[in-house]
């Protein structure tokens, strides 16, 4: 077999695997998109095209509370986790190597821990502290599992920085705190943004940890869905519409980010 035919063989095999991967990952998405325009409440069969679930989503208030709860917690948790995570990362980065490695192991425990274990751990802490489960405990829980992602994505940026940047700012007259804000933060901004995005997506899609820390009254979209498909009476296909909107939104965001990056690259080349 010549080198060229071998190469072609590898490429074909790789492309087939990739196609299979996309098929398996996108099948449920396609089904959700189809369900969101299926004119049937129970969806046992395809009963024609409709947009009424989308209209329902905005008109009726079935899902209003869970959606609002989800968005509010996601936004607040992301903001808090981003600020905390950024400062934690800066602190950890300043440590000597052995202690930094130890801190990073600690940081990654919630990342590798099964969500169910994290959920139980948080539940234990909250019940010990005597907190009533609800909005506040869910918020704290989401901040908690958001922080490690921020730390993880800020850390590599910090490592790439000139180690004297902070001191240069002090040297030029900044106070300790303003030196952090003026010299370090702007230069790890992409890492902070990436971390915030991670924290946000983790929060908006979280089921397990919210399930354990929300109590019986407070619900986000996922826990509401869990209850709804369990009972199946209160379930509405508007949930599919909600998911379809989120999906299309993320696709649009990716296209937007990529096109902006390309535009920037073209400008730099010029």
């Amino acid at each position, binding site marked *: 077999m010549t080198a060229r035919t071998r190469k072609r063989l590898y490429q074909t095999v790789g492309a087939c695997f990739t196609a299979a991967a996309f098929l398996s990952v996108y099948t449920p998405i396609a089904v959700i998109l189809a369900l969101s325009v299926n004119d049937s409440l129970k969806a046992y069969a395809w009963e024609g095209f409709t947009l009424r679930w989308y209209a329902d989503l905005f008109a009726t208030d079935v899902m209003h509370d869970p959606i609002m709860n989800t968005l509010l917690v996601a936004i607040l948790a992301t903001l808090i986790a981003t600020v905390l995570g950024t400062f934690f990362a800066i602190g950890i980065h300043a440590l000597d190597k052995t202690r930094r490695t130890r801190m990073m192991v600690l940081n990654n425990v919630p990342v590798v821990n099964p969500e169910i274990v994290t959920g139980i751990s948080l539940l234990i802490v909250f019940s010990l502290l005597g907190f009533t489960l609800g909005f506040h405990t869910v918020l704290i829980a989401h901040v908690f599992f958001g922080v490690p992602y921020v730390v993880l994505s800020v850390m590599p940026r910090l490592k790439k920085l000139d180690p*004297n940047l902070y001191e240069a700012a002090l040297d030029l007259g900044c106070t300790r705190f303003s030196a952090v804000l003026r010299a370090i933060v702007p230069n790890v901004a992409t890492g902070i943004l990436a971390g915030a995005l991670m924290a946000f997506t983790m929060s908006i899609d979280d089921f397990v940890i919210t399930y354990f820390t929300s109590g019986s009254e407070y619900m986000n979209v996922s826990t509401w869905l869990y209850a709804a498909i369990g009972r199946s009476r209160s379930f509405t296909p508007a949930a599919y519409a909600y998911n379809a909107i989120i999906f299309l939104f993320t696709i649009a965001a990716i296209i937007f980010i990529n096109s902006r990056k390309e535009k920037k690259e073209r400008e730099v080349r010029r």
Partner: protein
Amino acid sequence: MAKTLITLSGIEKSFDGVKVLSDFNLSIDENEFITLLGPSGCGKTTCLRIIGGFETPDAGTVAIDGRIVNDLEPNQRQINTCFQRYALFPHLDVFENVAFGLRIRKVEKAEIVRRVEETLRLVKLEGYGPRAVSTLSGGQQQRVAIARAIVNRPKVLLLDEPLGALDLKLRQEMQYELKEMQRTLGITFVYVTHDQEEALTMSDKIVVMNQGRILQVGTPEDVYNEPKNRFVANFIGESNIFEGVMREDYLVSFCGREFKCVDRGFAADEPVDVVIRPEDFDFVPPSKAKIVGVVDSLVFRGVHYEINVIVEGREYTIHTTKTRSIGDRVGLAVDPSLIHVMKRDVHA
């Protein structure tokens, strides 16, 4: 007599139990170009960082203008630093990098523009203001770093191996420019380097350091011609160092022979180290020479040849413009004034 600007007295500093500076005393004059010279890990950068306020000494005092500043933050000292890898702010353009210190001190806008442009002109970067720092060459970034420091009109500029990342040619150019800048600005420069040539070219005063201690302080001529001990002699320039004995004033014995010299003030028969620079040997006919040997190797070095001569099993290094062939028998002579006798190095 120049006015003393910075006084370090009795400084001690350890990191994780390792002593980096011990009993460190140094005074720096106004308008002086002083260089801390030593191998890496000798404590020179730590010393600089203590002056800059980035480290606090474990013991001892730092005084600037007679005022003790041990606890003063870096931003409260009239000192600026030019960092090893420049530490330019990647998120700001050249102009904003230079303007940084002025903005922090809330200098008036028009004044900022005037001073930044003036400084950029001084470092020959006129018109580079809107450029991103990442698009500049190493030498240009170096200039921005200097501009960013001197635009604040500090009393002292600390430079930590600022030319380390540049290639040889550029480094030599920058050496002259830095020296020139120091003269015109009238700022005290405290310069850290491990490159002895750099130190010799630019400095008014060189502080040779090793293992957290000062070994010698003096003008470049002093430390080159009159090294105080074996380490200094070895570190600055190339040297042939012999163990010898001072017979009496003006007479030293080494390698089994006695030589006239110009040194005195040693005890009779005191063990000493003798330094002869490679360029100070002359070839003479073997019949007339005290030292006779055989050429072992010869390397052309541009300006001169480096010739190794084996004399009684010991290697002598000689720099000369004359050439010899390997295997030649040669005689060596040295002028008494070029034999330098030092106290035996206690640390070695």
